[in-house]
């Protein structure tokens, strides 16, 4: 299969079940909602070393938020609901509670599985906090120096979230790979239900499980895709490929990831790109398989 001269490999991305939450941060303006979101989602690129993966899903207008103020939606992924609960307490506590003018709401209000991060954080109020129940949900009002921090008590957990959807861009050179990756990220931005956890949405250091030279290493460079190692190892790279970048996608469900992969791959098929492929572990580790050619069927 070829799209505009770019070869689409007959392979699949292998992804894993994860627990996910959506946090809605509102503030007096976008600048401050954004500041809190950036602080919340930093150092959250990979669940193994950062304990969670998090990024901004999209900006929200005043008509889309519970308190009718400008806001940002953030998705957070962890291995399970218990871990997710802990991460929400830590991150909301450090990055939203502290940020001027913000409020913090649950973005998955209809889901039955819940973690009560807001309840845990309320104690910052030193018993001076109070709550209000509106529409069947409890909101805590924590007294702080700039006024009050409004924080929803519980957050819905999507237990069927998916982490690790991906595709690789194989290009002539670094500039070509980067241009295609930036186009892919722009195309995926705004698709609801997905985030790209790596910096700027792009991973330049794709990894493989374990290492051949160090026994205790959990992950190491994916040498089969490293252009400078072409003859030093069993290379998976065809001639002419000098740079590879990976787009990793986490989503609230498989359909959202499929949409994102499709939009991203389409945008990445540009001059300078030779092929699109994907990372998997043979198919036995992750429950979710995203076949590239199936996803791109009606596009080619």
């Amino acid at each position: 299969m070829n799209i505009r001269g770019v070869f689409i490999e007959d392979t699949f991305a292998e992804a894993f079940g994860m627990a996910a939450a959506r946090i809605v941060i509102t503030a007096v303006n976008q600048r401050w909602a954004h500041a809190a979101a950036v602080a919340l989602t930093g150092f959250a690129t990979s669940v193994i070393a950062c304990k969670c993966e998090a990024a901004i899903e999209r900006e929200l207008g005043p008509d889309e938020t519970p308190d009718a103020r400008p806001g940002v939606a953030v998705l957070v992924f962890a291995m399970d609901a218990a871990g997710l609960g802990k991460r929400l307490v830590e991150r909301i506590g450090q990055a939203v509670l502290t940020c001027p003018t913000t409020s913090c709401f649950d973005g998955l209000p209809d889901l039955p599985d819940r973690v009560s991060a807001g309840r845990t954080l309320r104690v910052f109020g030193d018993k001076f906090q109070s709550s209000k129940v509106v529409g069947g949900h409890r909101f805590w009002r924590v007294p702080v120096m700039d006024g009050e921090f409004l924080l929803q008590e519980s957050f819905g957990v999507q237990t069927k979230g998916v982490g690790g959807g991906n595709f690789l861009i194989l290009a002539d050179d670094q500039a070509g790979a980067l241009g295609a990756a930036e186009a892919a990220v722009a195309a995926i931005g705004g698709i609801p239900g997905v985030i790209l956890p790596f910096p700027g949405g792009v991973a330049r250091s794709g990894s493989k499980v374990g290492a051949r030279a160090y026994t205790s290493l959990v992950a190491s460079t994916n040498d089969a895709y490293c252009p400078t190692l072409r003859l030093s190892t069993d290379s998976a790279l065809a001639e002419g490929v000098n740079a590879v970048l990976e787009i990793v996608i986490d989503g609230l469900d498989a359909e959202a990831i499929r949409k994102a992969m499709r939009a991203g791959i389409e945008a990445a098929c540009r001059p300078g790109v030779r092929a699109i492929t994907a990372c998997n572990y043979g198919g036995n580790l992750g429950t979710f398989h995203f076949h590239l050619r199936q996803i791109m069927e009606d596009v080619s």
Partner: protein
Amino acid sequence: MITLTLNEQPNVPLEAEVLSPDVLAALANDEIRALPVYLGNRQRRVDDFFSVEGARSDELEIRGDVGKVKWIGRGMTRGRITIVGSVGMHLGAHMTGGTIDVSGNAADWVGAEMSGGVIRIRGNAGGQVGAAYRGSLSGMTDGTILIDGTAGLEVGMRMKRGIIAIGGLVRDFAGLEMKGGTIVMRSGAELRTGAWMVRGTIISLTPIQLLPTFSYASTYNPTFLRLYARHLATLGFTIPYEDQDGAYRRYSGDACVPGKGEILVWTGAA
């Protein structure tokens, strides 16, 4: 400043390792004149061959064709030697600091096994620049050698670190068995570049013939080269590193060792 002017050309090579800032820095003029130099196996005095002006300085200027004077600057740790003329073998061998600047040509073994300092040859150099002496496991371990002209055989042989940059053509076996370090060749080299290379980097700014045991890996502009470009620019030697000007083809080798070295060959933008 101490100035030595060659009056009497030695008829066989003269060994003059006393001509070094470390030795001369504390000596009075008459003490310098009396320093021993070896004409073959005979001990002579410095002032048998040189007139000497000045004293007690770690700056030394040598004037005249000293192409038969060996071991100048041997083991020096500081100071400056300027040679106005050509110079003999083993210049700056084992030096650990200081600077040597030669206006003419140099013979073999410039900077052999040095571990610091800077040597600059404005003319041509001989073979075994920065190399290991026979039987030794590594050559220069740090420091920088710049040669504006050509260089001979076995440049950087068994080198372990440090930088050699050469403006003119280099002869066979550049980087022979090198275990680390960086050799930059503006005008390329003859044959067998990087033979038995274990580690380190050889950069050629023009296409060169490569051994069959070196394999092409990829084409790119490695970020680390920008650090070297800046370092070499302070010495007046420029290397390209921007995407718009071109890129380097990377060759891994030497597979027959097997080695983890690389040869980077510049290809200018079309």
